[in-house]
């Protein structure tokens, strides 16, 4: 029997960490992810886990400590947000290229400046090409479920990559909701023991990790790393199926909500999907064929599957909770557009930047987007593709 609880998104991730009982957690507090290491350090103090908790002096050190721990052969984890993630930047790449399956709780927050502690996706979107697998979560339940699945994905023989599990700062990290937890022993048996074949603490096999990699080798390593990212799509689905057997909760590369017969649709990430689903229901009640596609896996990017799911849509809005300053649209827009190019060219596609720095996104805003999509669908006139919703004009 699953355990019914009421937890915030941060508590849910901290509980997942406790159930996983990793070898090392190294973290530095930063709003809104602070609670995760805070709750976890209580579990350590209470003797509920036997994790080595490293209270580091910066996020750069947190990631460095995780890299050291993972290279030594341990399960290593951290949690961070915004500028904390930015300070890890250098080490994010080193973790991924050294093929160390570290798990991170990334509680999405706007990247400074100007300084802002509220939610958008500029932090993890900036890290999208660092070689980490990225899973996104609409609510506390998904944050918890994704976090448990992340270990199995990252540690898989064919993958060996770090995984970042993202959820929206404050909106889900601090909102208490109902949640179903697995029993501790079920989590333990699902994740299994981590037994790396090669690790630095093995005195019988001396190894070197992270060496100088000059032009004769670096390219081959990058090619191999790219292959691991390609392989991960299959493994993410395998792990999801196994997780579904255990919990009854179904996960995929993305979620389709009333998308099958939809004519207008959104592509969206994290908590605003919840708001948008309410709007879809309302529009459907009025006979509008609205739907949405919620991204769960952003890295690897499930291009083929997305193109297939969207190919019948007439007008599509890609919702970006991050600017990319490319001057042509947000990061998700670029991915979706290139995904549809040559595969579903007939779709009228526009981009909306929304909710930056924690700007409230209300059902009305989403309704406005759908009604603009209806207009585009009817008239065929696309107009400006790089749009904003919720900014004072």
């Amino acid at each position, binding site marked *: 029997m699953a355990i019914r609880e009421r937890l915030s998104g941060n508590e849910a991730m901290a509980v997942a960490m406790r159930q996983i009982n990793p070898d090392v957690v190294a973290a530095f507090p930063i709003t809104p992810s602070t609670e995760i290491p805070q709750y976890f350090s209580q579990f350590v103090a209470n003797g509920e886990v036997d994790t080595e908790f490293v209270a580091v002096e910066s996020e750069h050190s947190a990631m460095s400590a995780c890299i050291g721990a993972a290279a030594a052969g341990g399960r290593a984890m951290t949690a961070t947000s915004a500028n904390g993630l930015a300070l890890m930047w250098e080490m994010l790449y080193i973790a991924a290229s050294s093929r160390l399956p570290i798990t991170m709780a990334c509680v999405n927050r706007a990247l400074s400046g100007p300084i802002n502690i509220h939610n958008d996706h500029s932090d993890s979107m900036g890290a999208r090409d660092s070689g980490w697998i990225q899973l996104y979560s609409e609510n506390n339940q998904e944050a918890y479920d994704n976090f448990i699945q992340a270990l199995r994905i990252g540690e898989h023989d064919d993958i060996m990559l770090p995984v970042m599990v993202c959820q929206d700062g404050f909106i889900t990290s601090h909102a208490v909701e109902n949640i179903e937890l697995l029993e501790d022993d079920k989590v333990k048996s699902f994740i299994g023991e981590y037994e790396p074949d090669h690790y630095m603490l093995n005195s019988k096999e001396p190894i070197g990790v992270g060496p100088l990699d000059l032009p004769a*080798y670096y390219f*081959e390593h990058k090619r*191999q790393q790219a292959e691991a990212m390609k392989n991960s799509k299959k493994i993410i689905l395998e792990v999801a199926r196994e997780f579904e057997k255990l919990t009854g909760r179904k996960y995929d590369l993305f979620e389709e909500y009333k998308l099958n017969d939809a004519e207008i649709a959104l592509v969206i990430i994290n908590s605003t999907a919840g708001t948008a689903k309410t709007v879809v229901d309302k529009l459907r009640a009025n006979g509008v064929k609205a739907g949405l596609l919620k991204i769960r896996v952003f890295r690897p990017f499930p291009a083929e599957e997305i193109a297939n799911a969207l190919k019948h849509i007439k007008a599509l809005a890609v919702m970006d909770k991050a600017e990319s300053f490319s001057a042509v649209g947000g990061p998700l827009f670029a991915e979706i557009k290139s995904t549809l190019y040559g595969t579903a060219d007939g779709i009228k596609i526009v981009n909306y930047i929304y909710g930056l720095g924690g700007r409230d996104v209300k059902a009305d805003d989403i309704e406005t987007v759908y009604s603009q999509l209806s207009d585009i669908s009817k008239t065929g006139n696309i107009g400006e593709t790089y749009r904003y919703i919720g900014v004072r004009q």
Partner: protein
Amino acid sequence: MRNKNTKPMTPDVKWKEITPGGMIFDAGNAEDFKTGDWRAMKPIWIIEKCTQCMLCPPTCPDMSIPVKDSKRLDYDYDHCKGCGVCVEVCPFDAITFVKEED
């Protein structure tokens, strides 16, 4: 790291065979890396002047002055980078420093 490729890497290794992340399995492999071709200047040992005072071997940063039975031998030119430290150290002018020929 789980990975079955534990062979030493050579410059013809293909991407599928290379060790993930560049992990190195053969300890002491610096010997395989011939750094002698970095040399612009070359130390020459003048055996007749050498007193075997043993000042030069420990100063070489590349361990390129082999020692056997408490006596130095001729240079290991596969690894000597031509830094010139041994030339400076020798009190008996038993080492000259010449331009590396192509």
